[in-house]
Protein backbone atom coordinates (compact mmCIF):
# COMPACT_ATOMS: atom_id res chain seq x y z
CA UNK A 1 0.00 0.00 0.00
CA UNK A 2 1.27 3.43 -0.89
CA UNK A 3 0.05 6.86 0.16
CA UNK A 4 1.49 9.97 -1.50
CA UNK A 5 0.85 13.52 -0.38
CA UNK A 6 -2.55 12.63 1.12
CA UNK A 7 -4.56 15.61 2.36
CA UNK A 8 -8.10 15.77 3.74
CA UNK A 9 -10.07 18.85 4.73
CA UNK A 10 -13.43 19.06 6.48
CA UNK A 11 -15.29 22.34 6.43
CA UNK A 12 -12.19 24.50 6.11
CA UNK A 13 -10.07 22.63 8.66
CA UNK A 14 -7.20 20.59 7.24
CA UNK A 15 -7.21 17.24 9.06
CA UNK A 16 -4.44 15.48 7.12
CA UNK A 17 -1.54 17.49 5.73
CA UNK A 18 0.35 15.69 3.02
CA UNK A 19 0.82 12.17 4.42
CA UNK A 20 3.36 9.88 2.75
CA UNK A 21 3.50 6.16 3.61
CA UNK A 22 4.58 2.88 2.06
CA UNK A 23 3.31 -0.24 3.78
CA UNK A 24 3.77 -3.88 2.92
CA UNK A 25 1.76 -6.81 4.14
CA UNK A 26 1.77 -6.92 7.92
CA UNK A 27 0.34 -5.42 11.04
CA UNK A 28 0.68 -1.65 11.41
CA UNK A 29 -0.36 0.38 14.42
CA UNK A 30 -1.63 3.90 13.78
CA UNK A 31 -1.15 5.84 17.00
CA UNK A 32 -1.47 9.48 17.98
CA UNK A 33 -3.34 11.74 20.38
CA UNK A 34 -7.09 12.44 20.11
CA UNK A 35 -7.88 14.44 17.00
CA UNK A 36 -4.51 13.70 15.36
CA UNK A 37 -6.21 12.37 12.20
CA UNK A 38 -6.07 8.58 12.77
CA UNK A 39 -9.70 7.91 11.84
CA UNK A 40 -9.53 10.26 8.85
CA UNK A 41 -6.39 8.50 7.58
CA UNK A 42 -8.14 5.10 7.83
CA UNK A 43 -11.28 6.41 6.15
CA UNK A 44 -9.34 8.04 3.33
CA UNK A 45 -7.48 4.80 2.60
CA UNK A 46 -10.84 3.02 2.60
CA UNK A 47 -12.33 5.54 0.17
CA UNK A 48 -14.93 6.75 2.67
CA UNK A 49 -13.88 10.40 2.63
CA UNK A 50 -12.78 12.62 -0.23
CA UNK A 51 -9.05 13.38 -0.35
CA UNK A 52 -6.30 15.02 -2.37
CA UNK A 53 -3.19 13.02 -3.26
CA UNK A 54 -2.69 9.41 -4.24
CA UNK A 55 -3.67 6.18 -2.47
CA UNK A 56 -2.44 3.00 -4.14
CA UNK A 57 -3.56 -0.44 -2.95
CA UNK A 58 -1.62 -3.35 -4.41
CA UNK A 59 -0.30 -1.06 -7.18
CA UNK A 60 -3.74 0.14 -8.16
CA UNK A 61 -4.90 3.68 -7.56
CA UNK A 62 -7.95 3.91 -5.31
CA UNK A 63 -9.56 6.45 -7.62
CA UNK A 64 -9.17 4.17 -10.65
CA UNK A 65 -10.91 1.23 -8.99
CA UNK A 66 -14.57 0.79 -9.71
CA UNK A 67 -16.93 0.72 -6.77
CA UNK A 68 -17.26 -3.08 -6.55
CA UNK A 69 -13.49 -3.66 -6.71
CA UNK A 70 -12.77 -1.04 -4.08
CA UNK A 71 -15.43 -2.43 -1.76
CA UNK A 72 -13.91 -5.91 -2.05
CA UNK A 73 -10.33 -4.76 -1.67
CA UNK A 74 -10.54 -2.60 1.45
CA UNK A 75 -12.71 -2.63 4.59
CA UNK A 76 -13.01 0.03 7.27
CA UNK A 77 -14.28 -1.25 10.63
CA UNK A 78 -15.73 1.42 12.96
CA UNK A 79 -15.44 1.02 16.75
CA UNK A 80 -19.08 1.83 17.42
CA UNK A 81 -22.23 2.69 15.47
CA UNK A 82 -25.39 4.54 16.44
CA UNK A 83 -28.05 2.36 14.87
CA UNK A 84 -31.81 2.22 15.15
CA UNK A 85 -32.14 0.75 18.69
CA UNK A 86 -34.17 -2.25 17.48
CA UNK A 87 -31.36 -3.61 15.26
CA UNK A 88 -30.12 -6.92 16.68
CA UNK A 89 -26.54 -8.21 16.78
CA UNK A 90 -27.60 -10.86 14.24
CA UNK A 91 -29.07 -8.19 11.94
CA UNK A 92 -25.83 -6.23 12.21
CA UNK A 93 -23.47 -9.07 11.27
CA UNK A 94 -25.79 -10.07 8.41
CA UNK A 95 -26.30 -6.53 7.07
CA UNK A 96 -23.38 -6.63 4.65
CA UNK A 97 -24.09 -8.14 1.26
CA UNK A 98 -20.33 -8.38 0.58
CA UNK A 99 -19.48 -10.77 3.43
CA UNK A 100 -18.06 -14.21 2.83
CA UNK A 101 -20.84 -16.38 4.20
CA UNK A 102 -18.41 -19.17 4.89
CA UNK A 103 -16.32 -16.92 7.14
CA UNK A 104 -19.12 -15.21 9.04
CA UNK A 105 -20.08 -18.15 11.30
CA UNK A 106 -16.37 -18.61 12.08
CA UNK A 107 -16.02 -15.02 13.28
CA UNK A 108 -19.28 -15.29 15.24
CA UNK A 109 -17.60 -18.13 17.13
CA UNK A 110 -14.18 -16.48 17.51
CA UNK A 111 -15.71 -13.28 18.87
CA UNK A 112 -18.23 -15.28 20.93
CA UNK A 113 -21.34 -13.64 19.58
CA UNK A 114 -23.43 -16.80 19.39
CA UNK A 115 -25.47 -16.03 22.51
CA UNK A 116 -25.95 -12.38 21.52
CA UNK A 117 -27.42 -12.73 18.03
CA UNK A 118 -31.03 -12.04 19.02
CA UNK A 119 -30.16 -9.19 21.36
CA UNK A 120 -30.93 -5.59 20.37
CA UNK A 121 -28.00 -3.20 19.99
CA UNK A 122 -29.62 -0.92 22.56
CA UNK A 123 -29.13 -3.72 25.09
CA UNK A 124 -25.53 -4.80 24.40
CA UNK A 125 -22.38 -3.28 25.88
CA UNK A 126 -20.00 -1.24 23.75
CA UNK A 127 -17.51 -4.13 23.85
CA UNK A 128 -20.12 -6.55 22.53
CA UNK A 129 -21.10 -4.08 19.81
CA UNK A 130 -17.44 -3.68 18.90
CA UNK A 131 -17.07 -7.47 18.59
CA UNK A 132 -20.14 -7.63 16.32
CA UNK A 133 -18.68 -4.92 14.08
CA UNK A 134 -15.36 -6.81 13.93
CA UNK A 135 -17.12 -10.04 12.94
CA UNK A 136 -18.99 -8.22 10.19
CA UNK A 137 -15.94 -6.40 8.89
CA UNK A 138 -13.43 -9.26 9.03
CA UNK A 139 -15.89 -11.58 7.25
CA UNK A 140 -15.52 -9.41 4.16
CA UNK A 141 -12.13 -11.02 3.73
CA UNK A 142 -10.56 -7.88 2.24
CA UNK A 143 -6.86 -7.62 1.44
CA UNK A 144 -6.63 -4.26 3.19
CA UNK A 145 -8.31 -3.94 6.59
CA UNK A 146 -8.49 -0.64 8.50
CA UNK A 147 -9.61 -1.15 12.10
CA UNK A 148 -10.61 1.99 14.02
CA UNK A 149 -10.12 1.70 17.80
CA UNK A 150 -10.82 -2.06 17.87
CA UNK A 151 -9.24 -2.44 21.32
CA UNK A 152 -10.94 0.43 23.13
CA UNK A 153 -14.15 -1.32 24.15
CA UNK A 154 -13.34 -5.04 24.25
CA UNK A 155 -11.86 -6.72 27.31
CA UNK A 156 -8.23 -7.87 27.58
CA UNK A 157 -9.02 -11.42 26.50
CA UNK A 158 -10.64 -10.28 23.25
CA UNK A 159 -7.82 -7.78 22.69
CA UNK A 160 -5.35 -10.67 22.63
CA UNK A 161 -7.64 -12.98 20.63
CA UNK A 162 -8.14 -10.23 18.06
CA UNK A 163 -4.50 -9.22 17.76
CA UNK A 164 -3.37 -12.83 17.43
CA UNK A 165 -5.94 -13.42 14.73
CA UNK A 166 -4.97 -10.23 12.87
CA UNK A 167 -1.37 -11.42 12.95
CA UNK A 168 -2.39 -14.65 11.20
CA UNK A 169 -4.33 -12.64 8.62
CA UNK A 170 -1.35 -10.36 7.99
CA UNK A 171 0.89 -13.38 7.47
CA UNK A 172 -1.48 -14.41 4.67
CA UNK A 173 -0.43 -11.21 2.85
CA UNK A 174 -2.97 -8.70 4.08
CA UNK A 175 -2.25 -5.06 4.90
CA UNK A 176 -3.77 -4.39 8.31
CA UNK A 177 -3.93 -0.99 9.99
CA UNK A 178 -5.00 -0.66 13.61
CA UNK A 179 -5.76 2.84 14.89
CA UNK A 180 -5.58 2.76 18.66
CA UNK A 181 -4.20 4.40 21.77
CA UNK A 182 -4.09 1.13 23.74
CA UNK A 183 -0.30 1.07 23.40
CA UNK A 184 -0.34 -2.03 25.58
CA UNK A 185 -0.88 -4.67 24.24
CA UNK A 186 -0.87 -3.12 20.74
CA UNK A 187 2.85 -2.37 20.40
CA UNK A 188 3.89 -5.91 21.42
CA UNK A 189 1.92 -7.37 18.54
CA UNK A 190 2.51 -5.11 15.51
CA UNK A 191 5.25 -5.01 12.88
CA UNK A 192 5.21 -1.25 12.18
CA UNK A 193 4.05 1.95 13.80
CA UNK A 194 2.73 5.09 12.16
CA UNK A 195 2.55 7.92 14.67
CA UNK A 196 0.24 10.71 13.55
CA UNK A 197 0.26 14.13 15.15
CA UNK A 198 -1.56 17.24 13.97
CA UNK A 199 -2.39 15.64 10.63
CA UNK A 200 1.23 14.77 9.84
CA UNK A 201 3.33 11.62 10.16
CA UNK A 202 5.54 12.07 13.22
CA UNK A 203 7.16 8.66 12.96
CA UNK A 204 7.08 5.63 10.69
CA UNK A 205 9.07 2.49 11.37
CA UNK A 206 9.41 -0.56 13.56
CA UNK A 207 8.41 -0.67 17.24
CA UNK A 208 12.05 -1.12 18.28
CA UNK A 209 13.04 2.02 16.36
CA UNK A 210 10.08 3.92 17.81
CA UNK A 211 11.23 3.20 21.35
CA UNK A 212 14.70 4.54 20.53
CA UNK A 213 13.18 7.95 19.78
CA UNK A 214 11.30 10.39 21.98
CA UNK A 215 8.30 10.32 19.60
CA UNK A 216 5.84 8.96 22.15
CA UNK A 217 6.55 11.50 24.86
CA UNK A 218 6.62 14.25 22.20
CA UNK A 219 3.21 13.48 20.67
CA UNK A 220 1.38 12.51 23.86
CA UNK A 221 3.10 14.95 26.19
CA UNK A 222 3.65 12.12 28.68
CA UNK A 223 6.82 10.37 29.79
CA UNK A 224 6.78 6.57 29.39
CA UNK A 225 8.57 3.85 31.34
CA UNK A 226 9.30 0.86 29.07
CA UNK A 227 8.99 -2.53 30.75
CA UNK A 228 9.94 -5.71 28.88
CA UNK A 229 8.67 -9.10 29.97
CA UNK A 230 9.86 -11.75 27.50
CA UNK A 231 8.52 -10.70 24.06
CA UNK A 232 6.04 -8.42 25.68
CA UNK A 233 6.63 -4.67 25.74
CA UNK A 234 4.65 -2.63 28.21
CA UNK A 235 4.61 1.15 28.24
CA UNK A 236 3.71 2.71 31.52
CA UNK A 237 2.73 6.37 31.33
CA UNK A 238 4.49 8.03 34.24
CA UNK A 239 3.74 11.73 34.30
CA UNK A 240 3.16 14.67 31.98
CA UNK A 241 6.54 15.61 30.57
Amino acid at each position, binding site marked *: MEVRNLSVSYGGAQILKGINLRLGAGLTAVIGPNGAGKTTLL*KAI*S*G*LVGFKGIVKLFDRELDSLD*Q*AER*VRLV*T*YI*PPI*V*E*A*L*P*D*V*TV*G*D*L*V*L*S*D*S*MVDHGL*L*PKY*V*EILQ*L*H*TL*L*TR*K*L*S*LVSSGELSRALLARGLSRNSRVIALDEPLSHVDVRFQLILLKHLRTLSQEGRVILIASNQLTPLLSQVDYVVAVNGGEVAFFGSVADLLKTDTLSRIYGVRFEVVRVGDFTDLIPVEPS
Partner: protein
Amino acid sequence: MSSLDLFIKRRRKRFLIAFTLITSVLLIVFLAHLSLGYRFLNPLEVFVEGVAQVISRNLGVEGYRLLRALTAVVVGATLALSGCLMQVTTKNPLADPYILGVSSGALFMVVLSFMFAQPTAHPLAIALRTLTASSGGMLAYLLTMFIASKAGTTPTSVLLAGVAVGTFFYSASLLPQYVMFQDIHKLIAWSMGSFVSPSPEALVPLIVVSAAALIYIYLVRSPLNNLQISDDFVRQTGYNPMNLRRCLTFLASLLASVSVAWFGVIGFVGLAAPHISRRVLGTSGLVYVLPTSLVLGSLILTASDLIGKTLVPPVEIPVNVIASMIGAPTLALAIVELKRYGGGGS
Protein backbone atom coordinates in the same frame (compact mmCIF):
# COMPACT_ATOMS: atom_id res chain seq x y z
CA MET B 1 -25.51 -26.18 12.33
CA SER B 2 -23.85 -22.95 13.48
CA SER B 3 -25.55 -20.47 15.80
CA LEU B 4 -25.70 -18.02 12.93
CA ASP B 5 -27.50 -20.49 10.67
CA LEU B 6 -29.92 -21.13 13.50
CA PHE B 7 -30.53 -17.40 13.89
CA ILE B 8 -31.15 -17.03 10.15
CA LYS B 9 -33.49 -20.00 10.10
CA ARG B 10 -35.48 -18.83 13.13
CA ARG B 11 -35.75 -15.32 11.74
CA ARG B 12 -37.17 -16.64 8.49
CA LYS B 13 -39.55 -19.01 10.27
CA ARG B 14 -40.83 -16.28 12.57
CA PHE B 15 -41.42 -14.03 9.59
CA LEU B 16 -43.31 -16.69 7.66
CA ILE B 17 -45.58 -17.43 10.61
CA ALA B 18 -46.21 -13.76 11.46
CA PHE B 19 -46.74 -12.70 7.86
CA THR B 20 -49.14 -15.57 7.13
CA LEU B 21 -51.06 -14.94 10.32
CA ILE B 22 -51.42 -11.18 9.81
CA THR B 23 -52.35 -11.63 6.15
CA SER B 24 -55.00 -14.23 7.07
CA VAL B 25 -56.53 -11.94 9.70
CA LEU B 26 -56.43 -9.07 7.20
CA LEU B 27 -58.34 -11.23 4.70
CA ILE B 28 -60.99 -12.09 7.32
CA VAL B 29 -61.36 -8.45 8.41
CA PHE B 30 -61.52 -7.40 4.76
CA LEU B 31 -64.38 -9.84 4.10
CA ALA B 32 -66.14 -8.70 7.29
CA HIS B 33 -65.74 -5.11 6.08
CA LEU B 34 -67.50 -6.06 2.84
CA SER B 35 -70.38 -7.86 4.54
CA LEU B 36 -71.08 -5.66 7.57
CA GLY B 37 -72.70 -2.26 7.46
CA TYR B 38 -76.18 -0.83 7.16
CA ARG B 39 -77.29 -4.35 6.23
CA PHE B 40 -75.53 -7.70 6.15
CA LEU B 41 -74.41 -8.88 2.69
CA ASN B 42 -72.61 -11.95 1.41
CA PRO B 43 -68.95 -10.76 1.13
CA LEU B 44 -68.21 -12.76 -2.01
CA GLU B 45 -71.26 -11.30 -3.76
CA VAL B 46 -70.19 -7.84 -2.65
CA PHE B 47 -66.73 -8.49 -4.08
CA VAL B 48 -67.90 -9.76 -7.47
CA GLU B 49 -70.68 -7.19 -7.86
CA GLY B 50 -68.40 -4.47 -6.46
CA VAL B 51 -65.67 -5.12 -9.04
CA ALA B 52 -68.26 -4.86 -11.82
CA GLN B 53 -69.61 -1.62 -10.40
CA VAL B 54 -66.20 -0.04 -9.98
CA ILE B 55 -65.23 -0.96 -13.54
CA SER B 56 -68.49 0.40 -14.98
CA ARG B 57 -68.14 3.51 -12.79
CA ASN B 58 -71.68 2.97 -11.55
CA LEU B 59 -71.30 2.64 -7.77
CA GLY B 60 -73.98 0.91 -5.74
CA VAL B 61 -73.72 -0.41 -2.18
CA GLU B 62 -71.38 -3.22 -3.26
CA GLY B 63 -69.05 -1.01 -5.25
CA TYR B 64 -68.93 1.52 -2.40
CA ARG B 65 -68.10 -1.12 0.21
CA LEU B 66 -65.41 -2.72 -1.94
CA LEU B 67 -63.83 0.62 -2.70
CA ARG B 68 -63.90 1.66 0.95
CA ALA B 69 -62.32 -1.59 2.16
CA LEU B 70 -59.65 -1.39 -0.58
CA THR B 71 -58.96 2.20 0.42
CA ALA B 72 -58.35 1.12 4.02
CA VAL B 73 -55.92 -1.57 2.82
CA VAL B 74 -54.00 0.75 0.49
CA VAL B 75 -53.85 3.74 2.86
CA GLY B 76 -52.76 1.48 5.73
CA ALA B 77 -49.93 0.01 3.67
CA THR B 78 -48.92 3.45 2.35
CA LEU B 79 -48.71 5.00 5.82
CA ALA B 80 -46.86 1.98 7.19
CA LEU B 81 -44.34 2.26 4.35
CA SER B 82 -43.94 5.98 5.00
CA GLY B 83 -43.40 5.42 8.73
CA CYS B 84 -40.97 2.59 8.09
CA LEU B 85 -38.86 4.76 5.77
CA MET B 86 -38.88 7.63 8.25
CA GLN B 87 -37.72 5.36 11.06
CA VAL B 88 -34.92 3.94 8.91
CA THR B 89 -33.68 7.29 7.57
CA THR B 90 -33.71 8.98 11.00
CA LYS B 91 -32.72 5.83 12.98
CA ASN B 92 -35.53 6.94 15.25
CA PRO B 93 -38.17 4.42 16.38
CA LEU B 94 -40.57 7.28 17.18
CA ALA B 95 -40.70 8.65 13.63
CA ASP B 96 -44.07 8.71 11.87
CA PRO B 97 -45.60 11.09 9.30
CA TYR B 98 -48.18 12.33 11.80
CA ILE B 99 -45.80 12.73 14.73
CA LEU B 100 -43.24 14.57 12.60
CA GLY B 101 -45.89 17.03 11.41
CA VAL B 102 -45.81 15.89 7.75
CA SER B 103 -49.51 14.96 7.65
CA SER B 104 -50.58 18.30 9.11
CA GLY B 105 -48.35 20.19 6.68
CA ALA B 106 -49.96 18.36 3.77
CA LEU B 107 -53.42 18.99 5.22
CA PHE B 108 -52.75 22.70 5.53
CA MET B 109 -51.66 23.07 1.90
CA VAL B 110 -54.67 21.12 0.60
CA VAL B 111 -57.11 23.22 2.65
CA LEU B 112 -55.33 26.33 1.41
CA SER B 113 -55.72 25.17 -2.20
CA PHE B 114 -59.46 24.60 -1.64
CA MET B 115 -59.77 28.32 -1.01
CA PHE B 116 -58.83 28.93 -4.63
CA ALA B 117 -60.40 25.99 -6.44
CA GLN B 118 -63.04 23.41 -5.67
CA PRO B 119 -61.80 19.79 -5.92
CA THR B 120 -62.73 18.02 -9.17
CA ALA B 121 -62.01 14.58 -10.62
CA HIS B 122 -60.05 15.97 -13.58
CA PRO B 123 -56.67 14.17 -13.90
CA LEU B 124 -54.87 17.51 -13.82
CA ALA B 125 -56.70 18.48 -10.65
CA ILE B 126 -55.73 15.13 -9.09
CA ALA B 127 -52.08 15.64 -10.00
CA LEU B 128 -52.20 19.19 -8.67
CA ARG B 129 -53.77 18.10 -5.39
CA THR B 130 -51.05 15.43 -5.01
CA LEU B 131 -48.35 18.03 -5.62
CA THR B 132 -49.91 20.58 -3.30
CA ALA B 133 -50.18 18.07 -0.47
CA SER B 134 -46.61 16.87 -1.03
CA SER B 135 -45.18 20.38 -0.93
CA GLY B 136 -46.92 20.95 2.40
CA GLY B 137 -45.72 17.63 3.80
CA MET B 138 -42.18 18.23 2.65
CA LEU B 139 -42.12 21.75 4.09
CA ALA B 140 -43.33 20.50 7.47
CA TYR B 141 -40.77 17.67 7.48
CA LEU B 142 -37.87 19.99 6.69
CA LEU B 143 -39.05 22.40 9.35
CA THR B 144 -39.28 19.62 11.96
CA MET B 145 -35.81 18.28 11.16
CA PHE B 146 -34.37 21.82 11.14
CA ILE B 147 -35.80 22.62 14.57
CA ALA B 148 -34.72 19.21 15.92
CA SER B 149 -31.18 19.70 14.57
CA LYS B 150 -30.89 22.78 16.77
CA ALA B 151 -31.44 20.45 19.74
CA GLY B 152 -29.04 17.73 18.60
CA THR B 153 -31.50 15.60 16.55
CA THR B 154 -32.17 13.11 19.37
CA PRO B 155 -35.33 10.95 19.11
CA THR B 156 -36.99 13.13 21.72
CA SER B 157 -36.05 16.46 20.13
CA VAL B 158 -37.37 15.21 16.77
CA LEU B 159 -40.60 14.16 18.46
CA LEU B 160 -41.09 17.49 20.21
CA ALA B 161 -40.20 19.53 17.12
CA GLY B 162 -42.74 17.42 15.19
CA VAL B 163 -45.41 18.15 17.77
CA ALA B 164 -44.74 21.89 17.47
CA VAL B 165 -44.76 21.90 13.67
CA GLY B 166 -47.75 19.53 13.43
CA THR B 167 -49.85 21.52 15.88
CA PHE B 168 -49.11 24.73 14.03
CA PHE B 169 -50.11 23.38 10.64
CA TYR B 170 -53.15 21.52 11.98
CA SER B 171 -54.49 24.66 13.65
CA ALA B 172 -53.60 26.74 10.62
CA SER B 173 -55.63 24.35 8.47
CA LEU B 174 -58.69 24.67 10.75
CA LEU B 175 -58.79 28.43 10.38
CA PRO B 176 -59.81 28.67 6.72
CA GLN B 177 -62.16 25.72 7.19
CA TYR B 178 -64.26 27.71 9.65
CA VAL B 179 -64.03 30.99 7.80
CA MET B 180 -64.42 30.02 4.17
CA PHE B 181 -66.53 26.99 3.59
CA GLN B 182 -70.22 26.29 3.77
CA ASP B 183 -69.76 22.57 3.44
CA ILE B 184 -67.76 22.57 6.64
CA HIS B 185 -68.91 19.25 8.09
CA LYS B 186 -67.71 17.34 5.06
CA LEU B 187 -64.37 19.13 5.14
CA ILE B 188 -63.83 18.56 8.83
CA ALA B 189 -64.78 14.90 8.48
CA TRP B 190 -62.17 14.60 5.72
CA SER B 191 -59.45 16.42 7.62
CA MET B 192 -60.00 14.20 10.64
CA GLY B 193 -59.14 11.14 8.60
CA SER B 194 -62.00 9.22 7.08
CA PHE B 195 -62.79 6.67 4.37
CA VAL B 196 -66.45 7.74 4.09
CA SER B 197 -66.03 9.02 0.55
CA PRO B 198 -63.71 6.60 -1.26
CA SER B 199 -63.15 7.06 -4.98
CA PRO B 200 -61.07 5.41 -7.69
CA GLU B 201 -59.59 8.87 -8.46
CA ALA B 202 -58.12 8.98 -4.97
CA LEU B 203 -56.82 5.42 -5.01
CA VAL B 204 -54.92 5.68 -8.29
CA PRO B 205 -52.28 8.27 -7.21
CA LEU B 206 -51.83 6.42 -3.94
CA ILE B 207 -51.20 3.10 -5.68
CA VAL B 208 -48.90 4.70 -8.28
CA VAL B 209 -46.76 6.46 -5.67
CA SER B 210 -46.59 3.38 -3.41
CA ALA B 211 -45.61 1.13 -6.32
CA ALA B 212 -42.91 3.57 -7.40
CA ALA B 213 -41.61 3.72 -3.82
CA LEU B 214 -41.52 -0.08 -3.56
CA ILE B 215 -39.60 -0.40 -6.83
CA TYR B 216 -37.06 2.17 -5.63
CA ILE B 217 -36.75 0.40 -2.28
CA TYR B 218 -36.12 -2.90 -4.05
CA LEU B 219 -33.34 -1.31 -6.09
CA VAL B 220 -31.59 0.14 -3.04
CA ARG B 221 -32.36 -2.75 -0.64
CA SER B 222 -28.72 -3.39 0.24
CA PRO B 223 -27.71 0.16 1.29
CA LEU B 224 -31.17 0.69 2.80
CA ASN B 225 -30.61 -2.04 5.37
CA ASN B 226 -27.32 -0.37 6.29
CA LEU B 227 -28.83 3.10 6.50
CA GLN B 228 -30.45 2.16 9.82
CA ILE B 229 -27.01 1.06 11.11
CA SER B 230 -24.22 3.33 9.89
CA ASP B 231 -23.59 5.84 7.11
CA ASP B 232 -20.09 4.39 6.64
CA PHE B 233 -21.65 1.01 5.83
CA VAL B 234 -23.85 2.69 3.22
CA ARG B 235 -20.73 4.23 1.66
CA GLN B 236 -19.14 0.77 1.62
CA THR B 237 -22.01 -0.41 -0.60
CA GLY B 238 -21.10 2.35 -3.03
CA TYR B 239 -24.00 4.70 -2.25
CA ASN B 240 -23.90 8.22 -0.89
CA PRO B 241 -25.84 8.02 2.41
CA MET B 242 -26.94 11.67 2.30
CA ASN B 243 -28.39 11.34 -1.20
CA LEU B 244 -30.07 8.06 -0.31
CA ARG B 245 -31.55 9.62 2.82
CA ARG B 246 -32.82 12.60 0.81
CA CYS B 247 -34.53 10.35 -1.77
CA LEU B 248 -36.14 8.18 0.89
CA THR B 249 -37.22 11.18 2.96
CA PHE B 250 -38.81 12.65 -0.15
CA LEU B 251 -40.63 9.36 -0.82
CA ALA B 252 -41.78 9.01 2.80
CA SER B 253 -43.19 12.54 2.80
CA LEU B 254 -44.78 11.98 -0.60
CA LEU B 255 -46.48 8.75 0.49
CA ALA B 256 -47.99 10.31 3.61
CA SER B 257 -48.97 13.53 1.82
CA VAL B 258 -50.80 11.75 -1.00
CA SER B 259 -52.74 9.80 1.59
CA VAL B 260 -53.62 13.02 3.44
CA ALA B 261 -54.71 14.72 0.20
CA TRP B 262 -57.72 12.42 -0.04
CA PHE B 263 -58.24 10.78 3.31
CA GLY B 264 -57.11 13.40 5.79
CA VAL B 265 -54.81 12.96 8.74
CA ILE B 266 -54.53 9.42 10.06
CA GLY B 267 -51.99 9.24 12.86
CA PHE B 268 -49.79 6.59 14.44
CA VAL B 269 -50.18 3.82 11.81
CA GLY B 270 -46.78 4.73 10.40
CA LEU B 271 -45.35 4.44 13.90
CA ALA B 272 -47.19 1.36 15.08
CA ALA B 273 -46.91 -0.93 12.04
CA PRO B 274 -43.09 -1.04 11.75
CA HIS B 275 -42.63 -0.91 15.52
CA ILE B 276 -44.93 -3.84 16.24
CA SER B 277 -43.47 -5.72 13.26
CA ARG B 278 -39.91 -5.46 14.60
CA ARG B 279 -41.08 -6.59 18.01
CA VAL B 280 -43.02 -9.56 16.68
CA LEU B 281 -40.27 -10.60 14.25
CA GLY B 282 -37.34 -10.02 16.64
CA THR B 283 -35.35 -8.48 13.80
CA SER B 284 -34.99 -5.16 12.01
CA GLY B 285 -33.96 -6.73 8.68
CA LEU B 286 -36.03 -4.82 6.15
CA VAL B 287 -36.62 -7.88 3.97
CA TYR B 288 -38.84 -9.07 6.81
CA VAL B 289 -39.96 -5.83 8.47
CA LEU B 290 -41.19 -4.07 5.32
CA PRO B 291 -43.72 -6.67 4.08
CA THR B 292 -44.92 -7.36 7.62
CA SER B 293 -45.37 -3.61 8.26
CA LEU B 294 -47.36 -3.19 5.06
CA VAL B 295 -49.90 -5.93 5.85
CA LEU B 296 -50.05 -4.83 9.48
CA GLY B 297 -50.74 -1.22 8.46
CA SER B 298 -53.51 -2.47 6.18
CA LEU B 299 -54.91 -4.61 8.98
CA ILE B 300 -54.89 -1.75 11.52
CA LEU B 301 -56.79 0.60 9.23
CA THR B 302 -59.22 -1.99 7.81
CA ALA B 303 -60.08 -3.17 11.33
CA SER B 304 -60.31 0.44 12.61
CA ASP B 305 -62.65 1.43 9.80
CA LEU B 306 -64.75 -1.69 10.35
CA ILE B 307 -65.07 -0.85 14.04
CA GLY B 308 -65.78 2.80 13.20
CA LYS B 309 -68.69 2.01 10.94
CA THR B 310 -70.25 -0.80 12.98
CA LEU B 311 -69.81 0.35 16.59
CA VAL B 312 -72.74 2.76 16.90
CA PRO B 313 -74.65 2.71 13.60
CA PRO B 314 -75.66 4.81 11.81
CA VAL B 315 -72.90 7.08 13.20
CA GLU B 316 -69.61 6.84 11.26
CA ILE B 317 -66.67 7.23 13.62
CA PRO B 318 -63.68 8.52 11.60
CA VAL B 319 -61.07 5.81 11.04
CA ASN B 320 -58.43 8.05 12.61
CA VAL B 321 -60.20 8.02 15.96
CA ILE B 322 -60.06 4.24 16.26
CA ALA B 323 -56.60 3.91 14.66
CA SER B 324 -55.13 6.46 17.06
CA MET B 325 -56.47 4.50 19.99
CA ILE B 326 -54.38 1.56 18.77
CA GLY B 327 -51.40 3.67 17.70
CA ALA B 328 -50.99 6.04 20.62
CA PRO B 329 -50.32 3.26 23.19
CA THR B 330 -47.62 1.97 20.81
CA LEU B 331 -45.98 5.38 20.94
CA ALA B 332 -46.17 5.31 24.73
CA LEU B 333 -44.52 1.88 24.70
CA ALA B 334 -41.79 3.07 22.32
CA ILE B 335 -41.03 6.07 24.54
CA VAL B 336 -40.81 3.87 27.66
CA GLU B 337 -38.46 1.48 25.82
CA LEU B 338 -36.20 4.29 24.65
CA LYS B 339 -35.97 5.63 28.17
CA ARG B 340 -35.12 2.21 29.54
CA TYR B 341 -32.30 1.80 27.03
CA GLY B 342 -30.85 5.14 27.98
CA GLY B 343 -31.78 7.34 25.08
CA GLY B 344 -31.26 5.01 22.11
CA GLY B 345 -29.79 6.05 18.75
CA SER B 346 -30.06 9.55 17.41
